[in-house]
């Protein structure tokens, strides 16, 4: 069953063709270069870019998958969460195609898509992955940080989430405080490798409570206080560089530590009721190698860890939307084009 999937939730215009969990094409027109100079996503630019690109990306995806529109069985689109005026562009296009080819429309939650990025296969059907339910998913990105209990396909329960800033956002903000540019994640990760992660003992967020919720606002503030104190005007270039890499490493240590600890708490709490064997780590921040390394170290002995199956699946992309839509297609969870509205705050 072939699906054309569209994701325009933020700053990537992406269209994919999937068949079950196989990805036949996954085209992403990145806008990062355009947003870079603003230090983040700019809604109006995002919308304009989506509008300019969508038609072309749809064609590219169909060509890449060697598929004609009439061969499709359904159209899937991200309904939310995301940037309202960006979501609209993808939704409009999806409705248009669905009506044009007379095939059903499936509305997908972007976060559900991130979960399914770990099930996506290449054209030949590799790798072969199976989950055992219930499982625990940690979804980390610029806009989200949440722990989700997944009892079955389509059955989700958020058991913890950020109370203020998302972890990816904290990376961006710290990068900006250190004047490092955007996006902050890859830059901080890179600099952190050269720094001493114990140089500045930042408080690990939310350690006083046993809840599974996250908070990165306090950590961000601590980094701000520290940089104001140590990055004074009189210091030499070498000293400055040293401080920056040490701040990056120390910040990353605290950020990762909180993700690991909260996941541990969630597993302990859920362990009383469920037998959990699988952990999914997905979303843009899951591309961070230090995070994955720490997860492997702590969890791989007792759990099976799942990450997005290739590097195009970490960030926002439409292939994961198509894979997620596959289960909805089987169940017949369709939406009438007229009823499909953007839901910028949609939650699992």
């Amino acid at each position, binding site marked *: 069953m072939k699906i054309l999937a569209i994701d325009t939730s*933020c700053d990537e215009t992406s269209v994919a063709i999937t068949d079950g969990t196989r990805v036949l094409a996954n085209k992403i027109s990145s806008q990062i270069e355009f947003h870079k100079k*603003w*230090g*983040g*996503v*700019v*809604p*109006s630019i995002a*919308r304009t870019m989506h509008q300019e690109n969508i038609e072309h990306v749809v064609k590219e995806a169909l060509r890449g998958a060697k598929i004609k529109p009439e061969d499709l069985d359904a159209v899937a689109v991200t309904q939310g969460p*995301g*940037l*309202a*005026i960006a979501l609209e562009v993808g939704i409009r296009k999806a409705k248009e195609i669905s009506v044009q080819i007379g095939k059903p429309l499936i509305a997908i939650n972007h976060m559900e898509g991130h979960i399914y990025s770990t099930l996506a296969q290449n054209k030949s059907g590799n790798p072969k992955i199976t989950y055992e339910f219930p499982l625990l998913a940690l979804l980390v990105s*610029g*806009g989200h940080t949440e722990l989700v209990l997944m009892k079955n396909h389509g059955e989700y329960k958020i058991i913890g*989430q*950020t*109370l*203020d*800033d*998302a972890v*990816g*956002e904290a990376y*961006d*903000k710290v990068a900006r*405080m250190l004047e490092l540019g955007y996006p902050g994640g890859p830059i901080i990760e890179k600099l952190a490798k050269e720094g001493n992660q114990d140089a500045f003992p930042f408080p690990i967020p939310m350690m006083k409570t046993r809840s599974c919720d996250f908070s990165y*606002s*306090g950590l*961000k*503030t601590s980094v*701000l*206080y520290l940089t104001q104190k140590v990055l004074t005007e009189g210091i030499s270039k070498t000293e400055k560089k040293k401080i920056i890499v040490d701040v990056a490493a120390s910040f990353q240590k605290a950020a990762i530590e909180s993700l690991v600890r909260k996941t541990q708490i969630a597993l302990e709490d859920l362990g009383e009721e469920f037998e959990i064997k699988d952990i999914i780590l997905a979303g843009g921040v899951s591309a961070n190698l230090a995070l994955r390394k720490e997860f492997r170290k702590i969890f791989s002995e007792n759990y099976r860890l799942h990450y997005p199956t290739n590097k195009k699946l970490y960030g926002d992309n439409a292939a994961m939307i198509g894979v997620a839509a596959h289960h909805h297609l089987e169940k017949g969870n369709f939406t009438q084009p007229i009823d499909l509205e953007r839901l*910028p*705050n949609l*939650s699992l």
Partner: protein
Amino acid sequence: MHLIKKLKLYRMQMMHKVLKISETPTEEIIREAANTLLSGGLIIFPTETVYGIGALATEQKAIDKLLSYKTRREGKPLSIAVDSIKMAQEYVEVNDIARNLYENFLPGPITVVSRGKHTVANGVESESGTLGVRIPDYELVRDIVKKIGKPITATSANASYKKKPYNINDILNNVSDKQKNLIDLIIDAGTLPKREPSTVVDTTGGGETVLRQGDVRLTKVRETTTESGEQTQELGRELIRKYKHYLGYKSVVLALEGELGAGKTEFTKGVAKELGIKEPVLSPTFIVEKEYQIETTEGSYAREKKPMLYHLDTWRITEVEAEFEALGLVDKISEGHVFSIEWADRATEFFEKVSETAIIVWIKIEHTDKENERKITISDFAKE
């Protein structure tokens, strides 16, 4: 010419008496004005802002006459001039907030709206029973009011929607003969300095709200210290509570200023709680704008569109005005929503654009020497 015709013409011309301030002893003006008012007549008089039209506020006949002069009011309330807070209290309930304004700003170009006591003629109070009171910063007017011992109306002397009256010709050139004939006495002080009509402040909602911005830029500033995020949230709750009754017909814009980590989102969380929003309110930095449906039974629900909370963050965007334009904010402002805008000091043009249509509250959050302590300064009115 026939005598009767002559008399008629004479009356037409002499329907109103004009007393020039420069040529008439003050005593005489006060006496003439008081007599005219007490016999139910209308007078045009100068104030520190524009020319006003006065009628005895307690006399139904006089008010009816005034209302036929000020046509097309569409339920707009009149305001009254008194000579003291003591006189004001006979006609309105002066609560603590109003008292504060009387004591600090009056006499002056400010009209304080309070709950009326229904002791004036019909048509003076608003339909909802409120009444605007003014103590003009113009001694002559206060003396006239003192002489008659009762309030007079203090609405501007232009016919509704016409030019603001700074001299007598501004008035006479813009009204019909019929309206002219209703005027009994004109106190002519020449051309007045061009000042805006009074600032109108509503004190009936539990706080002060500027209904019309005049020259006086009332900045009511409160300074508070909070010691935790929870306390900052609580402050947000308290603040929006005062403005909830505007939901659905007037937008309330919370303009938040403060460094990274100051607690701007915390403040907004409190606001959201008070507005019945159950979803967690997270930082909007990443996507610039987040929207939440307001769940509350207060305010006006007559509108098709339900009121929303728009949470915005200008931190990352450089072209703030263009971005707000793209998000359609100026249009949304007219619909009666709540806007919480972080890094608001980067959007000054936007605030100028909406200052007439929305209620703007500035909130500045600052770090102090103590780690979790914040100094929060709330200015309820437009910035100086």
